[in-house]
């Protein structure tokens, strides 16, 4: 059980407080409701580039990192297709420093040309390091546009191409800040060795005077139902053939999400899972295989990916995956197997409560989804799923016409 209190400032900033006095630390997690899905198709990668610029100094404080490190704090951030999330961990006695820093950059950035120049380079190097200079590194740059034709999930958070990042202008930066970085578009979670009433006072003091602005309205074209199987083959200088299959699946708030997530566990969680046992151990077709969900706020993807054993025909490997999916569509999951994946969910949730930052991030994300309190009924939602639900869900997802297959083949 993750307990919390919640209040909203008059400018619309939502604040949640999770007291945990077993630690001497505090965390401040601020989630902004903006991600790569909100980008213009001609300026992709921008939400993530912007995240880097948030560390380039704010209107009254020339350096963000330095004063935080001086009080023993650490910070980082990430951008996804849905959100941009910033977090600080610091000794609880120095909590106010985090409020000072975060409120100033919500108020306004310094908009330094130098920072923009440098971060364009840094992000270009990140693009190369993670996506271009790694074997199979560009898979998501290929798979997203194959699976999504209309929705802005069709590009990755790093962006479609390096040139979009290289062309980002200060004008773009300012417009993005004005539109998305305002109190009504953020959720702040303060956790750890803190007191709710003290957090309330600090929040009013530092964030209360930030001008309100309208919460931006999202108008993203939803992805039309896919009607035929898609397939793309790429040849690259990689040592092994690999296969990636993406299926459209329900959004994060849909009960179908839980069914689908359990299906991914049945298929590939742990060494007794179906794909592991059947495809790696018994049939010896793959050296690695994995099934997982993207868990995105708009309807997401169910992914199966695997590296194929040298000498095995790609068609045979692909067919073997489908055979496992057919089984899920036609045979009810045995009770024992369903209990097994549910037990794993239950224990994972308990282990997750050992991490303060994890709890804070989860509260922020669930608040964005609708209600932070839902974090505490998450296990329950998984436990409610029946074998019948799984059978039906598998039937609706694992259809050829709902699939996008990427064959990533070795040139050798």
């Amino acid at each position, binding site marked *: 059980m993750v307990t919390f209190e919640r209040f909203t400032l008059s400018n619309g900033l939502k604040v949640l407080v999770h007291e945990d006095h077993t630690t001497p630390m505090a965390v401040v997690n601020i989630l902004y409701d903006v991600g790569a899905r909100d980008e213009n198709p001609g300026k992709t990668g921008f939400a993530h580039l912007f995240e880097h610029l948030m560390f380039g100094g704010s209107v009254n404080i020339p350096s963000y990192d330095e004063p935080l490190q001086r009080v023993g704090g650490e910070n980082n951030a990430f951008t996804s297709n849905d959100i941009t999330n910033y977090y600080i961990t610091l000794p609880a006695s120095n909590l106010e420093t985090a409020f000072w820093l975060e409120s100033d950059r919500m108020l306004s950035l310094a908009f330094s040309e130098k920072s923009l120049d440098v971060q364009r380079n840094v992000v270009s190097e990140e693009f*190369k390091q993670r996506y271009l200079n790694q074997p199979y590194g560009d898979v998501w740059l290929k798979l997203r546009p194959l699976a999504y034709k209309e929705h802005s999930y069709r590009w990755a958070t790093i962006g479609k191409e390096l040139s979009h990042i290289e062309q980002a202008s200060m004008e773009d930066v300012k417009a993005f800040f004005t539109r998305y970085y305002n109190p009504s578009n953020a959720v702040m979670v303060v956790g750890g060795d803190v007191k709710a009433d003290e957090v309330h006072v600090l929040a009013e003091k530092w964030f209360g005077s930030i001008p309100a602005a309208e919460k931006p309205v999202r108008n993203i074209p939803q992805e039309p139902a896919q009607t035929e199987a898609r397939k793309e083959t790429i040849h690259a200088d990689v040592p092994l053939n690999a296969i990636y299959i993406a299926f459209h699946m329900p959004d994060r708030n849909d009960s179908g999400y839980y069914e689908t997530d359990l299906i991914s566990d049945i298929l590939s969680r*742990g060494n007794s899972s179906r794909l592991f046992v059947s495809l790696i151990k018994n049939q010896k077709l793959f050296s690695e295989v994995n099934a997982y969900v993207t868990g995105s706020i708009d309807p997401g993807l169910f992914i199966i990916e695997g590296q194929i054993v040298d000498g095995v025909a790609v068609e045979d490997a692909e067919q073997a995956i489908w055979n496992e999916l057919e089984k899920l569509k036609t045979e009810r999951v045995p009770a024992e197997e369903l209990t097994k994946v549910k037990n794993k969910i239950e224990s994972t949730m308990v282990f997750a409560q050992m991490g303060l930052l994890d709890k804070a991030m989860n509260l922020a994300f669930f608040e964005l989804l609708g209600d932070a309190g839902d974090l505490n009924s998450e296990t329950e939602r998984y436990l409610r799923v029946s074998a019948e639900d799984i059978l039906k869900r598998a039937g609706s997802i694992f259809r050829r016409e709902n699939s996008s297959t990427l064959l990533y083949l070795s040139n050798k």
Partner: protein
Amino acid sequence: MIDRTLAPAFRQVENINIIKAAPFVLDNGIPVHVINGGQQDLVRIELVFNNVNWNVQKPLQAFAVNSLIAEGTSSSSAFQIAEKIDYYGAFLQNDYNYDASLVTLYTLSKHLDNVLPVLKEIVTDAVFPEEELETFKRNQKQKLLVNLEKNDFLCRRVFNNTLFGDTLYGYSSEAEDYNKVSRDELVEYFHLAYQPENCTIIVSGKVDDTILSLINKHLGRNWDKSLKAAHNVFSFPVKPGGFHYVEKPEALQSAIRVGQISVNRSHPDFPALQVLNTVLGGYFGSRLMANIREEKGYTYGIGSALVSLQHAGYFFIASEVGADVCSATMAEIEKEVNLLKTELIPEDELQLVKNYMLGSFLGSLENAFSHADKYKNILFSGLDYDYYDRYVKTVKEISAGTLLELARFYLDFDAFNKVVVGKK
């Protein structure tokens, strides 16, 4: 109106409370170290076996045993073992590092009595079925092929081999080494290394007497002392510096790794060197990050570290940088290393680093597992909790003058071993 240009008052970290390990001994003599903390009803049980009998003719012997430990016993198949663990929502993890082989069980306490027999079974009765061994070889060779395409992997491998040669710390395994692994050598190693005599157990989480007696019931009985195996002992002379270049004509980025043999945690200078390392490349605001990422934009990240192994320590700086700025980066690294030897670290910067390190240390004690990890650091370095008192005292009190002397004594860019994979 508040003045937003003024930073709020703050305090340096004062009290750091480490949950100390309590000793316990199983009936068969295995020492158990208990770190009791937290509210969740769960435990982590780590069985730590020293690596023994290093033999360069069988370089993968210990690694393969650890990897295949849960892949079959005389009474259960790999699937049956995995299914039992998964059914109870537990996690079984094997880790092989430079000094030890670990088998770790994570479980909710309510299922402990059900999963401990599985743990016992695999560490006492693993049989390494031929078919599982073949699967292991096939998959590992494929993994190696993919890794060899990664510049940073290749770079680390060349670097470690340069420093540590064909010992366990430096050996670069090839596909051929996997082909040579035989079931017999696994069985042989298993019987030598996975013995009570060679085992230490660390239990962390919410640990009470019931949990300890369950552990004793399953792991403390019917598993007896055996012959002592020869612990690995290595000693490493500091190698003369050299430059190693692996060209990758298509590379967009080059991986860089430079460094040298250094001292490990058991050396009195280790905490002070950690301060020096932090200034140079041990945190986001470090000199290397400030210069090479935040000023020049050459890289997504650059860092340095001081690594403590049981028989050696080493220091390194590593990054992946744009191929066109590789030599410029190398020049900046040299400049930053030399600056530490010629100029005192400004008081303001040193104070920041001290505060950062204390906060970071406090933050690294998040839960019972992290307290246990802190204990493992000292236990396996032959130290006691005084080490952390000394660490904190050193961080608080060390002067710029002492750091300058340390830099002059320990850091010599010309003597570093330098590896570049990509383009120069």
